[in-house]
């Protein structure tokens, strides 16, 4: 939407510069470069197992970042995703271990564990949206509430104790395989396709861009701005819930203190690197996927090369600065 408004005002001569090209496809170029680097520098890179390791590790970030992309496209931000993952992660084992409600049969517990936590985090997402729309609180402040309180809730529910478990039926979402690929990778792929389709083909997708591009104009044009905003926060909450379940399923344990810790930053980084403008009005689902993969590849390469953790964090920060700089260049050109 922003682009469409900007085009008529732009000067008549449109030069395709290198920076503009990079801004548009910078993330893809970066990913290609990183994969080349990994091929040269790290041993055993070209194998199915490497692909599996990387896709498994990136799935959680991608799922959260998809919801984040929609929120960012409306000009908002959701800091609470990591804490919501912790809440989902805390609730699920309590459900399938039968600590909350008595279970008539084991499958009931698993079914509840796969649905209720996600609905709960969706409801928390709705609360975020309600704060943003009803009281016009800035999203960064409104979602800060649950960033802090959400983890507290997860800790209170579990008494801060680590919940270890073994439940093959539930853990399919983290450990299962389908046609050689982990189940959570299929889940991630399905969600990417769904979100890409929704942004391109549905009215809701258009409305998100309209709200993010120019909220007043959208309101005057009859877009239900508040409803659209509340919905994107709900979606972000649902995504966080799913990611929380995946993480605890892989680890056979839920730790309210650590599940999803720092996830909001990874997700925002993936969105930013992927080319979605943090000022809103633009959403690139494919870009978010590529952005998450870029972050993952950086992490993988630095780990495989034995670069210490602290340096890896700095590299990640540098990447985000580079991505934002490229975006700005793109807008100037």
């Amino acid at each position, binding site marked *: 939407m922003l682009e469409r408004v900007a085009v008529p005002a732009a000067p008549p001569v449109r030069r395709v510069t290198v920076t503009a090209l990079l801004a548009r496809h910078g993330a893809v170029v970066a990913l290609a470069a990183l994969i080349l680097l990994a091929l040269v520098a790290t041993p055993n890179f070209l194998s199915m197992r*490497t692909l599996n390791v990387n896709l498994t*590790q990136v799935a959680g970030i991608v799922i959260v970042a998809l919801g984040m992309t929609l929120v960012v496209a409306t000009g908002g931000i959701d800091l609470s995703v990591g804490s919501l993952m912790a809440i989902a992660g805390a609730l699920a084992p309590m459900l399938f271990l039968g600590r909350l409600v008595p279970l008539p049969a084991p499958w009931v517990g698993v079914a509840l564990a796969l649905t209720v936590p996600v609905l709960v985090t969706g409801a928390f997402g709705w609360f975020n949206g309600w704060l943003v729309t009803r009281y016009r609180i800035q999203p960064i402040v409104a979602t800060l509430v649950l960033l802090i309180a959400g983890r507290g809730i997860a800790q209170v529910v579990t008494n801060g104790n680590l919940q270890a478990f073994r439940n093959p039926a539930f853990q399919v979402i983290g450990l299962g395989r389908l046609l050689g690929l982990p189940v959570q990778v299929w889940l991630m792929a399905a969600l990417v396709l769904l979100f890409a389709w929704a942004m391109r083909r549905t009215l809701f997708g258009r409305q998100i861009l309209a709200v993010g591009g120019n909220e007043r104009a959208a309101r005057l044009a009859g877009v239900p701005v508040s409803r659209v905003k509340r919905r994107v926060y709900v979606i972000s909450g649902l995504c966080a819930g799913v990611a929380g379940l995946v993480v605890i399923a892989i680890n056979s344990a839920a730790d309210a*203190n650590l599940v999803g810790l720092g996830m909001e930053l990874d997700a925002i980084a993936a969105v930013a690197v992927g080319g979605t403008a943090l000022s809103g009005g633009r959403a690139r689902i494919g870009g978010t996927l590529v952005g998450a993969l870029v972050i993952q590849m950086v992490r993988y390469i630095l780990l*495989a090369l034995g670069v210490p953790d602290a340096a890896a964090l700095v590299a990640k920060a540098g990447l985000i600065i580079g991505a934002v700089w490229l975006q700005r260049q793109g807008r100037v050109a």
Partner: protein
Amino acid sequence: MLRRDMFSMTAAAALTALGGSRIQAQDAGMPKLAQKTAYKVGFAQTESNNPWRIAQTESMRSEAAKRGHQFVYTDAAASAAKQVADVNSMIAQRVDLIFLAPREEKPLVPAVMAAKRAGIPVILLDRRVDEAQAKPGRDYVCFIGSDFILEGHRAGEWLVREMKGQAAIIELLGTTGASPANDRHAGFVEAIKASPGMKIIAGQSGDFVRDKGRQVAETLLQANGAATAIYAHNDEMAIGALAAIEAAGKKPGKDIIVVSVDGTRDALQAIIAGTMGATVECNPKFGPKAFETMERYARGEAIEPWVINQDRFFDSSNAQQLIADSY
């Protein structure tokens, strides 16, 4: 909440100021502990968000009850500032002795000094404070804790024996800069130094966390196909590594031998199942040692600066018998 904290802090500050002027004369000496049958003891815990801390608190609480002492407990919820305030409020309550599990080395020095000025002896548990600023025997009674270097050493010794001196080792380190991580690394390196066949081929921090330990192990296993052993600085990371080994299509306990430190229930279960090799206990049960040391101090005995809390060793020979006792 905030207001109450502020109040207790100011109250405590006023009290310490009062105490300070009174006790300055005998500043050189350590506060004494009178011999009584029942004491009012304070325990300032740093946090209680993991099984180890919970087991530690439980051990202190039950031992105090067993010996008939009154137990004043505070939880600093992972904040050094709150822990200083906690100690100050214990001073205000005039406890006889304070057990302190200091969260960080430097920020807790003022708390130790405030207690000394108020004439209340302090015993440090499981972590130390900066020894340049506060010394055992002068500013506090002593430090009770495990020997982290020895823990690393025992893990290394076991691995050398188990692998017959030949291993390509991946090391999962604890939080960068944390003293258990530094010491467990140093002890391990020392133990394998004599065997040229034992090589650490890769080492990265897994932050003492299961999820991160798993991800780091996945990556390192992929990049280092030749690895035959993993040494993790704690059980949570080791359990993450077990999942990573399985995901890489190998058998933990057969293709890759895992050894770690802590002795949690999950780790003992893995040892019984044959997936994990061994774990060196990092004993959280401080109660008996802590109160025994307190009573020795009351009797006027000289206390060594570092009272070592004994750690056991768990492997397939004893995991089954000892699991009921684990945390």
